[in-house]
């Protein structure tokens, strides 16, 4: 590591003793450390401060750690994320890994092990980035280009081609669309969509989600009134299907 370029580590942890202890040790190790005590602040710091690694707790007030993880992974596939959680059940580990976490340590953890893992993750990150032309992730073809029906979505150029012709996607549209396209067939609740797609906490108006769905349907559906890709599920939220759903099953 070059001595004058400090690697940045963002710690998202709600217990301030643990957060400060991690801060102390990571600083002594020569990293620049940022602390966020909840999910909303964590996501904001991730956007503005651009850390090289994120240490993430799962049980957080507001947005939980797994939603933060998914939110970040929608935009950035590469940033190393280490989950530090009291949840030791295999279930959570599997979930975390499925959503794209790089490492999972259970509390209480050994300090030495934690520091070595952080060091390893930071060392390895530039190797997988070296072939990457686009610094912000979004590099692999399969995560950038999607087709369903006659529609095409290209996240690299942020364009979508569908019934409505070629459309330029806004950043927020792209994020939400990616969430749907990477989770086909899985029902997504409005709350989850807000948390993952926007980084909002519960209680914020869920109308926002509905407005975006209306737009997606106009872009991609043959008939926006009877959608066959972006389907509403009563009192839950929405589900996306790669293959159009026949009318009678709706």
């Amino acid at each position, binding site marked *: 590591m070059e001595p004058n370029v400090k690697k940045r580590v963002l710690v998202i942890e709600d*217990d301030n*003793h*643990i957060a*400060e*202890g*991690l801060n*102390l*040790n990571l600083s*002594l190790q020569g990293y620049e450390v940022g602390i966020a005590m909840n999910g909303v602040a964590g996501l904001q710091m991730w956007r503005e401060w651009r850390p090289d690694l994120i240490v993430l707790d*799962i*049980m*957080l*007030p507001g947005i*939980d*750690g*797994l939603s933060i993880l998914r939110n970040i992974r929608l935009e950035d596939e590469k940033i190393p994320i280490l989950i530090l959680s*009291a*949840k030791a059940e295999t279930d959570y580990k599997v979930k975390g890994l499925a959503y794209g976490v790089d490492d999972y340590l259970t*509390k*209480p*953890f*050994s*300090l*030495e092990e934690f520091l070595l893992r952080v060091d390893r993750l930071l060392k390895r990150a530039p190797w997988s980035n070296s072939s990457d032309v686009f610094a912000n992730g979004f590099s692999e073809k399969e995560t950038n280009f999607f087709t369903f029906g006659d529609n095409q979505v290209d996240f690299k150029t942020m364009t979508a081609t569908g019934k409505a012709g070629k459309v330029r996607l806004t950043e927020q549209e792209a994020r939400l669309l990616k969430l749907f396209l990477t989770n086909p067939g899985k029902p997504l609740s409005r709350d989850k969509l807000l948390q993952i797609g926007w980084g909002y906490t*519960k*209680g914020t108006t869920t109308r926002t989600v509905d407005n975006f769905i209306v737009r997606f349907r106009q872009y991609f559906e043959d008939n926006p009134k009877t959608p066959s890709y972006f389907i509403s599920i009563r009192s839950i939220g929405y589900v996306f299907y790669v293959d159009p759903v026949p009318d009678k099953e709706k």
Partner: protein
Amino acid sequence: MNRTKWLIHPVFILVFSILALVTSLSLYIYWYIEISSGLKLIVERFNLDTGQFLTSQTWFVIMVLTVLVGVIIMGIFIIFVYNLKNLRLYRLQHNFINNFTHELKTPVTSLKLYLETFLKHELSRENQLKYIQYMLSDVGRLSEDINRILNLAQIESKNYTGEYVFQSLPETIEKFYQNNAHLFRNCAVQIHFPEKEPYFYRFILPMFEMLLMNLFTNAIKYNNSAIPRIDITFEKQQKKLIIRFKDNGIGIDKSETKKIFKKFYQVGHADDMSAKGSGLGLFLVDQIAKTHKWKMTAESAGPGKGAIFNLILPLRS
């Protein structure tokens, strides 16, 4: 839905057994009437003495059978309800263990982290003192958690050995607040003393303090306001004294104002990780109130609008 799962579902078993019982009852009655009418024919054909046999017992038999079957159905139903209750308790207990281990692991993690840091690095005296303070407060958290479990066990088994004292409640609350002021440093706690009456009551002091501690910490813990407030007022009604603990916290959903006193109950959901705490605090509060033959209720104008906890005592003349 999974077919085999559906077959062993308790509701299905309940409905099925009741149907089977009702069918068997009608079969009993049908066969009984069949046989007795056949018997009657035989009696008539052979010119036997009719008075020697049955005759008008038919209705009596049907009634007895119906009552017995009714009792069995009630029995099944009661077992069913108990089973449901047990299932709920089991689920809550499972949640509790999950959350409580989290609650225990957090201070342990912090302790381990600092101890290992001390092993690894030579820290300045100033820093050492600061982190030792942290460790001490983590130990405090741990022993508090352990005490809570022990107290709960004692209170539940009615084994709590405490001396009753005869004291003024407002003054006890004031004293409790003074003794623990360091815990409520950034909060505005106001005890509105009643005008005339000192309200002397007989109660177990450590238990009452436990109740206060739980109410106070809840008001602060579940609070997003810049300065958490607790207002304590005393209200005299015809036969009751109501002590209100009003806060400006996150409030309670109307549907949950009763449930929050249940054992292991937590607002929020275990699966989306929004539930926090042990689910024991308010249960303990309720149990303590009950031990003194008092009552606890909660009310709230809704989420985000604060909550009021009422301790209702009989008015002493």
